[in-house]
């Protein structure tokens, strides 16, 4: 059984249709990236999958007891709410201090325990969110534009961290992004979304697909190739680990 199985989802608000007839599955251990332009319904799809939204048509089936580690696009913490990193990691369930420290290390941020969440830099904040997601021992890690606000090297480092985390946990990863050149090469499968699924397949298949080129042009082709070259080794390695 797939971890998540979404069938023919329709969703809209205020008479405006956001998603139409979207079906997808997520299997154990695979990395799936959803790409699409702004307003293409990527975040909506993710929120349907975690159950934050209910589809108007279609059905989302999650494996019973599925543990989701969710890293939101941006988390605004109200300035009236004081919360340290250590306390944040213990929500909603308390975790042993050693596990919290391990998760922070795995996410690439050490020694921030007593910092206020509001005092973290953008990169630190996203990594703490990642650490919290890891602590749930997730079957699937979901990242919604998790590197928004990070610069290019920052987001590349963040995605390398995710690849490392996945290798440790063996969890599936579902991420949403428009930073194609950074993300695509690490994915087993890419879903190109623009209200409906335009095309899907391996990164090679999608980046060559006419529907994809129509949406994004060919401008990213060079960068994509460059990045893939850089991280060829890491990519192959993941496949070995997954098998």
């Amino acid at each position: 059984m797939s971890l998540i199985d979404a069938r023919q989802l329709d969703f809209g608000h205020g008479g405006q249709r956001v998603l139409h007839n979207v079906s997808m599955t997520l299997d154990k251990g695979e990395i799936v990236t959803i790409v699409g332009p702004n307003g293409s319904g990527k975040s909506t799809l993710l929120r349907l999958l975690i159950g934050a939204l209910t589809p108007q048509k279609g059905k989302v089936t999650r494996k019973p007891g599925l543990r989701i580690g969710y890293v939101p696009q941006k988390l605004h913490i109200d300035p009236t709410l004081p919360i340290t990193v250590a306390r944040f990691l213990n929500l909603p369930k308390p975790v042993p201090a050693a596990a919290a420290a391990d998760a922070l290390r795995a996410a690439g941020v050490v020694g921030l325990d007593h910092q206020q969440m509001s005092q973290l830099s953008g990169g630190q904040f996203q990594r703490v969110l990642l650490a919290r997601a890891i602590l749930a021992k997730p079957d699937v890690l979901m990242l919604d534009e998790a590197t928004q606000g990070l610069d290019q090297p920052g987001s590349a480092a963040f995605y390398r961290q995710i690849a490392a985390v996945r290798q440790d946990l063996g969890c599936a990863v579902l991420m949403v992004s428009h930073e194609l050149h950074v993300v695509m090469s690490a994915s087993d499968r890419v879903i190109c979304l623009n209200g409906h699924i335009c095309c899907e397949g391996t990164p090679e298949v999608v980046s060559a697909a006419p529907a994809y080129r129509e949406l994004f042009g060919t401008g990213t082709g060079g960068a994509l190739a460059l990045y893939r070259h850089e991280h060829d080794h890491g990519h192959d390695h993941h496949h070995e680990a997954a098998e």
Partner: protein
Amino acid sequence: MLDDFLVRAALAAVGTAVATGLLGCFVVWRRMAYFGDATAHAAILGVALALLFGTSITLGVAVVALGMAVLIHSLSGQGIAVDTILGVLAHGALALGLVAVTLVPGQRIDLDAYLFGDVLSVTRSDLAVIWGGGALLVGVLWWHWSAMLTATLNPDLAFAAGINPRRQQLILTVLVAAVVAVAIKVVGALLITALLIIPAASARSFASTPERMAFFAMAFGALSALGGLRLAVIFDTQVGPSIICVAVGIFAISMISRQLPQLRV
């Protein structure tokens, strides 16, 4: 001991302020101040209805406050700005309540007692309602603390963890209505929101975690209650407004001490 009206007043004020201090943290974090106002103002309508039907004031206030809370809950998220809805409902309910009270046949009632509180006249059964209600509120918040905190931080984080944030919101809504019913005797309908917000806002300056903020808010609430009662006795002023004055004083001190961040624990 309970025969002394001052002792009863002190117990009632402290019990109320501790409960509102704790709940007030969520009101502040979730920006529900206006919501508290609307619910509290509806209480006057509850008073009128209770007098009309000859039921207990607490019951009337609780029912109307709850109805108002549920109405707001269902109206929000329908395309109208929430503060507009709350403005309409808050003042609409207050006006309707004030009109309805004067239409109640029989003796003219002392409206001041319901607008500004009348803690010096609390009875033993009022005390039972206040402390029983307060204990229930603390218990519910204790039970739901982590889930509610997660839902407050971010609804999607809650969904991903299997928590339904709408449900948490509804629980808070009900608790605010309950607190209004309990607190109207102490500070009155117009100042209940102050008792929810000011101690929590003062606590923010000194706290580094949500739990510590909640603790300080309860402490500041109790301090305001006792200080206000003392002021009222000395200067022969109304108790409810005096309590809020002390709370505002504590808030002012907390704002000044923000300049000294090492105070934060």
